[in-house]
């Protein structure tokens, strides 16, 4: 809706001192006209359900408000470009202040005022500070690369600290039910992100159907437990194996495809698996899903319930603790933490093995790899299967944590979220996945009361981050192997 991210390529940054009012206003007017066309049918006219059928309601004030905002925003940007940054900065700050302090008819208007004013103010402040209207793409990239490189190097220290923090978190008094639940959610997505990173980040295959393997893992456990009464600890490896097999089955025919075709086929496969889950009613329970999935025991020797079934010890009695329902949550938390760390360790180690090196080489240049005698299909298949296996592990963990699964949980949007985590973090960057998960999953979780706007902001955020940093937030990769063992040349950071 906002046109603020628009820039005019023809206007050279801060070249002219004098302000060309006519052109600036014309430009802003055009933007407002586009906004008018955008908002008249969909914002200005709302369909409402009436007893007699569909009715319609006019909301002219919202159209006018968005027009004004687009006009002013565009005008502000135009003026910044022409050396009037300081007045614009003051006005934009005033605008944001008004939005923040004065009562507003709707929350949306307040949000737009604050955000729009804020964005313009930042732009203006940057111009005032640097004397340029806008950092060039290359400049921005260079700066962010430097930050990313620092983070990468710091990750050697941050990594263990973060793991230690994650490990002691449940033992601190901070840990209540909610914090632990959010922690489990975050760790699940971190694990999925790391798993997908093997395919997307290392092997360079764009997989839009990763959720299929997550679903296979979840349903493997749920169905095995449902029909054969197998326990979680038997099913966890089985789920991984089944997901890996499905990865090989799905991957084998399509791995010859390249690039976008591959992406679309994986999307198709993801949908096929979901449709099968929905339609195979007798076996999978159809859209109703499977409920009453057994909870995990303490490695098969103790149970977390107050009075466990015959032949099972109770966890709290075994360790002489007061019974607490939190024990199971804490156990689940450690379980997913361990699973996620396994994926991370695997990725870090495999990059030093021939397999991992072949993946990275494939990512950089497919054809060169073939010329060097690397079996492309087998390498890709291995990446696909291993990532699928980790997805399967995560899936069966999801099933045991939720106790209930249905095809609803495995829609395309899940795949998109996981892929967004990998790409936004910077492909191939392990710490990037963590940062992106905190952003993509953590932030919406923190703003639960704005639930309606979550996905809207999520979509817009994906676009904005890509525009701002097309290679991902922390897309800095040190080459795994260096010639002469020396310091890496600066050019490698810009590798594709």
């Amino acid at each position: 809706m906002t046109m603020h991210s628009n820039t005019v390529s023809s206007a050279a940054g801060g070249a002219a001192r004098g302000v060309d009012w006519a052109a600036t206003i014309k430009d802003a007017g055009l933007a407002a006209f586009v906004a008018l066309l955008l908002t008249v049918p969909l914002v200005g006219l709302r369909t409402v359900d009436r007893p007699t059928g569909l009715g319609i309601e006019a909301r002219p004030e919202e159209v006018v408000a968005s027009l004004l905002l687009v006009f002013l925003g565009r005008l502000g940007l135009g003026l910044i470009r022409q050396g009037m940054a300081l007045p614009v900065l003051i006005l934009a700050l005033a605008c944001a202040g008004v939005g923040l302090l004065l009562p507003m008819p709707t929350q949306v208007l307040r949000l737009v005022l604050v955000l729009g004013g804020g964005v313009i103010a930042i732009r203006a402040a940057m111009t005032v500070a640097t004397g340029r209207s806008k950092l060039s793409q290359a400049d921005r990239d260079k700066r962010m690369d430097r930050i990313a490189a620092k983070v990468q190097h710091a990750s050697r220290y941050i990594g263990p600290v973060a793991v230690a923090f994650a490990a002691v978190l449940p033992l601190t008094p901070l840990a209540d039910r909610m914090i632990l639940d959010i922690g489990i959610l975050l760790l699940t997505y971190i694990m999925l992100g790391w798993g997908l990173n093997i395919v997307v980040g290392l092997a360079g295959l764009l997989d839009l159907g990763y959720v299929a393997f997550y679903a296979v893992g979840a349903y493997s456990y749920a169905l095995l437990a449902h029909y054969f009464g197998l326990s979680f600890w038997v099913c966890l490896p089985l789920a991984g194996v089944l997901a890996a097999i499905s990865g090989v089955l799905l991957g084998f025919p399509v791995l010859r495809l390249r690039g976008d075709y591959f992406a679309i086929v994986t999307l198709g496969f993801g949908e096929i698996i979901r449709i099968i889950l929905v339609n195979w009613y007798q076996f999978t329970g159809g859209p109703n899903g499977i409920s009453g999935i057994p909870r995990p025991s303490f490695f098969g020797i103790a149970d977390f319930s107050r009075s466990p079934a015959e032949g099972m010890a109770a966890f709290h009695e075994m360790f002489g603790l007061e019974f607490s329902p939190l024990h199971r949550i804490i156990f689940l938390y450690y379980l997913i933490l361990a699973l996620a760390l396994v994926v991370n360790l695997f990725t870090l180690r495999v990059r030093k093995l021939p397999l991992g090196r072949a993946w990275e080489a494939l990512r950089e240049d497919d054809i060169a790899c073939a010329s060097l005698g690397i079996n492309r299909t087998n390498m890709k298949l291995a990446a696909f299967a291993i990532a699928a296996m980790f997805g399967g592990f995560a899936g069966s963990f999801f099933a045991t944590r939720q106790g209930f699964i249905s095809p609803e949980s495995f829609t395309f949007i899940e795949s998109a979220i996981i892929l967004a985590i990998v790409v936004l973090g910077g492909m191939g960057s392990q710490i990037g996945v963590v940062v992106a998960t905190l952003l993509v999953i953590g932030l919406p979780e923190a703003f639960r009361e704005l639930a309606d706007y979550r996905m809207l902001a999520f979509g817009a955020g994906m676009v904005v981050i890509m525009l701002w940093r097309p290679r991902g937030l922390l897309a800095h990769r040190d080459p795994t192997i260096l010639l002469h063992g020396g310091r890496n040349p600066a050019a490698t950071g810009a590798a594709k």
Partner: protein
Amino acid sequence: MDYFLQQLINGLSLGAIYGLIAIGYTMVYGIIGMINFAHGEIYMIGSFVALITFLAIGALGITWVPLALLVMLLASMLFTSVYGWTVERIAYRPLRSSPRLAPLISAIGMSIFLQNYIQLLQGARSKPLQPILPGNLTLMDGAVSVSYVRLATIVITLVLMVGFTMLINRTSLGRAQRACEQDKKMAGLLGVNVDRVISLTFVMGAALAAVAGMMVLLIYGVIDFYIGFLAGVKSFTAAVLGGVGSLPGAMLGGVVIGLIEAFWSGYVGSEWKDVATFSILVLVLIFRPTGLLGRPEIEKV
């Protein structure tokens, strides 16, 4: 035989709709080499604009059906193409020289954004509409009945296709478009405004998708904010099936997909029709990656 003919008509009209959307995919892929993932959402927006226009002119008291349909068609084409233009301007143009994945992610983000944008503005519930164009044409002594809407869909699609082919083959805009498709840099050097051509490609694709959206509204009489995803994926399948970059291919692919879906629903059952479509996609990509009418892709080192 009657049943067969009935399904044939259903399949053709459905295929016409997929074909109209597929043209947007195929043109965009041909010219900038990206999958415009938000195109399905553009089609959904077209459908909503048509619905809102219909309700608005109903509220104004215009009841003459042909006029209403014409206004709906023009309004949804106009407003939807502005959306197509804006999406390209905001989300894709700044990324034109970026790594291949960036525009795709941006497009997925745009698609999620537009879906939720419509859901927030117009509500999540599906929107039913009483038939605007009721009535059937009966053939073969009443054994086969073709609703006027489906007939109109096929006719309008044919007309649009002829007009569109003329536009691409005869006008200077079409020539510029084809030039950009072959070599953007060279076209730019020869004085073609590449940015403008790309923008117009999005506008044309969006306008055709809007027609498809309106037709779906007329045929099925119910839409919601989520219809874009599945239709988008299937139309992309149609574009791939026909050969990405080929306009007749997109139409042919759309018709093939529509026929498969109609016959599958008619003879096997409607639950598995989407699986059938996706399986076709996979099979085509494996055995004939260039599609039915596509040019072979040359691997350059």
